């Protein structure tokens, strides 16, 4: 290694964040072999997309989905990454840096990308547990844990971009949120009063309280935060306080090293500090008097910095004009430039109250000086491009406010669809604001590099790789370039051809977006078909049922016939009926009632099932309610032999009769069945309990199997018979029956909440890994109890015998009677 790299210059990067790593990427493109690169990161993570923390908090994305460079990227590019290593000192004489952990590394060139720190307002109580900022993944984890642990009230101090995204995320996680904002309207730096008001109203309609012109006096609490006290004496309850009043450049390291520092680390146009060996990029710098807290300027700095490091002549960085988008699902908001107005400024305003649309363009000398768009931001990119180019708009200012679709630059022709609008864009039109990528660069890359997927374009051009809001535009460019050759490739397989969303995304978005009906899901997630298909509708029905127990109204028309009529359809259109036999136990009374039903309705076949019950075959649909009525009268209920739900609990006789039995397996089985019957699950679920390791109940090929041993119960999961037999994995050994029930409820709930529809427990556990299941069920006592509690709660709404409801004629009477008889 040393032999190989001798002679290379050593580049050390302090700060494993977006600006620093982007500079390295740009540098590697220019000259991959010039430097031996070492990166210090204070966080334990690889480089992730910090601007996507809001969607992670809101549950719309997972952390894995916002990783920008995984470990293999560092390896593949010979970049040494030291995580959880905060650099404490720079020795400019010796040209070394030293971390808190004592690592000292020498450099020829040093790049500072230390980012910014959240501003903490100096009020009493600011150090209390429960007071957090919103800056990194650690903060998000703290907030999510707080919400999950039953924290009810959150106060967000600061009604700017970050504060409002935090407020929305916490509200989605079920907390009551109050935003405290010093100024008269929210996001006053990006929005004018009218748009700020519309935004505030939208937030309030989501249950977020906004208090403006409010000054925080103190944060209250003893050993944990309990509330916030305002200057005017008002007190607001809080289990969690998020400080989001702003950021300031993190300059401590540079200052200590004696570099020129004002508000930020002072750099020239090539991002060089007052020490020629040291460069700086990102939020920590001050360039021509300005500091930046948005992503687009960072990318521009990264390019200039990489030019300099690679010895490439470049124009240097000339400062940035920035634009803003709020990343709150369902709120479209765009702002750019200067909209404060003034004497020589003119306003063009468009309002459509019914659609909740507000647009304002500020003109100065026939050029766009600023734009605020609320409710309809499609033309944001277009306005922003003209703003940056200082384009003269006097020729079409009459129709400017109606947007690009009105025919500008198209000789008056109105594009019939968004694709035509994209086709009409000039090659210099900016598509990706975060990364400054224009249309020409993307189409050129597609053509020259033979790119065919969104990921390809992201990899080669970075377009849509940051905040992702231009993904649609990039996909349209792919479509335009490749025609039918382009197939939108999602990372995971979509649920069905009605949608591009895979199962896991749909599950997450249902919860994150508070979607509570099938039409709502289809609308919000842009289903391609008017009412789905036989594949997605039952899945959506299940996901909604699992997400909103007691609240969601089951849609019977979206259920497979067996679950709609509570019997199993047979090849001739008749049905089979299986009454529940708790733990496989029956009685003379039940057997007599079954015999009578068989005679009365001339049921042709009676068969004992593999699940220790009796199946009656060949029942006509119109006879079902009457058959059920007679079975109900003898105390029998539906066995759910037709359900994606709990089927049977198979048992052996156990210690009550068997000379080998160590525990009462039958009794345990009955208790399990009493607890779990009626539950809906992603696929069928079978349980079994054996009374000794001879395992006569075949408990080790069940979804949840229990085997009694002298000292307690062994629990097994994720087995099945069937086409592909899978033996269970051992989950845990417990001592008491109560523990068996708790582990079972928790395991089933985890399966209910996280598996994909029509996955049995076996493929689900194989996908997520047994270790994960153990972590959630065995190692996390509190988590297990919470899962079990959610299972028990959902059971409150599912343990009604569907046969009884229908036998008495109350439910779905139309289902069992013909509409008419003619001829």
């Amino acid at each position: 290694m040393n032999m190989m790299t001798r002679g290379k210059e050593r580049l050390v990067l302090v700060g494993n964040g977006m600006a620093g790593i982007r500079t390295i990427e740009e540098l590697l493109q220019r000259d991959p072999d010039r430097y031996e690169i070492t990166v210090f990161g204070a966080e334990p993570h690889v480089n992730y997309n910090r601007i996507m923390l809001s969607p992670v908090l809101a549950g719309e994305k997972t952390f894995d989905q916002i990783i920008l460079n995984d470990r293999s990227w560092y390896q593949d590019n010979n970049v040494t990454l030291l995580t959880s290593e905060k650099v404490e000192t720079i020795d400019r004489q010796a040209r070394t840096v030293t971390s808190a952990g004592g690592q000292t590394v020498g450099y020829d060139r040093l790049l500072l990308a230390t980012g910014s720190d959240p501003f903490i307002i100096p009020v009493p109580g600011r150090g209390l547990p429960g007071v957090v900022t919103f800056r990194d993944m650690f903060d998000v984890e703290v907030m999510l844990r707080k919400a999950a642990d039953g924290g009810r009230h959150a106060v967000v101090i600061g009604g700017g971009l970050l504060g409002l995204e935090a407020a929305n995320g916490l509200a989605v996680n079920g907390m009551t949120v109050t935003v405290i904002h010093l100024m008269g309207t929210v996001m006053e730096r990006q929005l004018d009063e009218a748009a700020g008001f519309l935004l505030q109203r939208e937030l309030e309609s989501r249950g977020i309280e906004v208090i403006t012109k409010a000054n925080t006096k103190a944060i209250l609490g003893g050993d944990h935060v309990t509330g916030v006290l305002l200057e005017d004496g008002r007190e607001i309850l809080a289990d969690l306080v998020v400080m989001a009043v702003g950021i300031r450049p993190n300059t401590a390291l540079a200052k200590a090293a004696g570099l020129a520092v004002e508000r930020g680390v002072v750099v020239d146009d090539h991002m060089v500090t007052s020490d020629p060996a040291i460069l700086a990029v990102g939020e920590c710098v001050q360039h021509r008097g300005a500091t930046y807290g948005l992503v687009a300027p960072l990318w521009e700095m990264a390019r200039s910095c990489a030019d300099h490091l690679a010895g490439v002549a470049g124009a240097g960085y000339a400062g940035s004009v920035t634009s803003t988008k709020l990343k709150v699902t369902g709120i479209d908001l765009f702002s750019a430039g200067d909209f404060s107005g003034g004497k020589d400024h003119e306003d063009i305003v468009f309002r459509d109250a019914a659609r909740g649309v507000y647009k304002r363009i500020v003109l100065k000398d026939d050029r766009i000086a600023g734009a605020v768009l609320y409710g309809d931001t499609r033309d944001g990119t277009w306005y922003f491009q003209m703003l940056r180019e200082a384009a003269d708009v006097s020729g079409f200012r009459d129709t400017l406010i109606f947007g690009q679709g009105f025919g500008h630059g198209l000789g008056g022709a109105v594009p019939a669809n968004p694709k035509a609008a994209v086709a009409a864009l000039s090659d210099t039109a900016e598509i990706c604001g975060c990364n400054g990528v224009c249309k020409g660069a993307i189409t050129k890359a597609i053509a020259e590099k033979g790119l065919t997927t969104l990921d390809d374009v992201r990899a080669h051009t970075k377009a849509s790789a940051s905040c992702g809001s231009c993904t649609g535009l990039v996909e349209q460019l792919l479509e335009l370039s490749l025609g039918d050759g382009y197939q939108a490739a999602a990372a995971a397989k979509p649920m069905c051809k009605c949608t591009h969303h895979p199962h896991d995304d749909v599950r997450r978005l249902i919860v994150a977006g508070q979607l509570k009906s099938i039409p709502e899901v289809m609308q919000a997630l842009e289903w391609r078909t008017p009412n789905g298909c036989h594949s997605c509708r039952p899945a959506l029905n299940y996901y909604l049922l699992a997400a909103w127990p007691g609240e969601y109204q089951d849609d019977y028309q979206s259920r497979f016939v067996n679950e709609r009529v509570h019997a199993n359809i047979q090849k001739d259109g008749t049905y089979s009926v299986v009454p529940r036999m708790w733990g496989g136990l029956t009685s003379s009374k039940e057997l007599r009632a079954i015999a009578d039903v068989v005679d009365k309705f001339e049921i042709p076949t009676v068969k004992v099932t593999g699940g220790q019950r009796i199946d009656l075959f060949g029942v006509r649909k119109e006879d079902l309610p009457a058959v059920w009525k007679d079975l109900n009268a003898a105390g029998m209920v539906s066995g759910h032999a037709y359900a994606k739900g709990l089927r049977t609990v198979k048992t052996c006789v156990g210690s009550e009769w068997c000379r080998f039995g160590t525990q009462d397996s039958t009794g345990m089985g009955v208790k399990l069945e009493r607890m779990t019957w009626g539950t809906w699950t992603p696929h069928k679920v079978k349980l079994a309990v054996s009374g000794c390791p001879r395992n006569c109940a075949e408990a080790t090929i069940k979804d949840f199997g229990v085997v009694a041993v002298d000292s307690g119960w062994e629990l097994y999961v994720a087995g099945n018979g069937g086409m592909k037999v899978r033996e269970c994995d051992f989950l845990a050994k417990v001592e008491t029956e109560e523990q068996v029930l708790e582990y079972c409820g928790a395991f089933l709930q985890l399966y209910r909440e996280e598996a994909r529809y029509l996955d049995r427990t076996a493929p689900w556990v194989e996908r997520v890994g047994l270790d994960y299941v153990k972590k959630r069920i065995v190692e996390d006592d509190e988590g297990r109890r919470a899962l079990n509690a959610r299972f028990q709660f959902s059971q409150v709404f599912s343990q009604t015998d569907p046969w009884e409801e229908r036998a008495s004629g109350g439910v779905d009477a139309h289902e069992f009677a013909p509409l008419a008889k003619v001829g």
Partner: protein
Amino acid sequence: MAQDISSIDVSWIEVGKVADIPPAGARVVKSSQGDIAVFRTADDAVFAVRDRCPHAGGPLSQGIVHDARVTCPLHNWVIDLASGAATGPDEGCAGTYPVRVEDGVILLGLKLPAAAA
């Protein structure tokens, strides 16, 4: 087995109200010519199809209705309600019946034996 039923020479017979069928659902009309599935789509269009899938005779009335299609409950063939024909790569036709709706009442056009009409 395929029936070719033209709307000429048929008797229009009331079989019930649109409201008797759940949206995106179906009900069966028993007839001397076999079961007829009467469908109501999510946007209230009404279709009448012979209640036998061309594949294995499954009762189409029991399937999931999406758009103007039904998925057979036995083996997931998807049948177009307007034509009665299988969609996608599958081939076959269930056969349809003339149907019309007047004031919310469904009328089926059936060729019945003289005695019954």
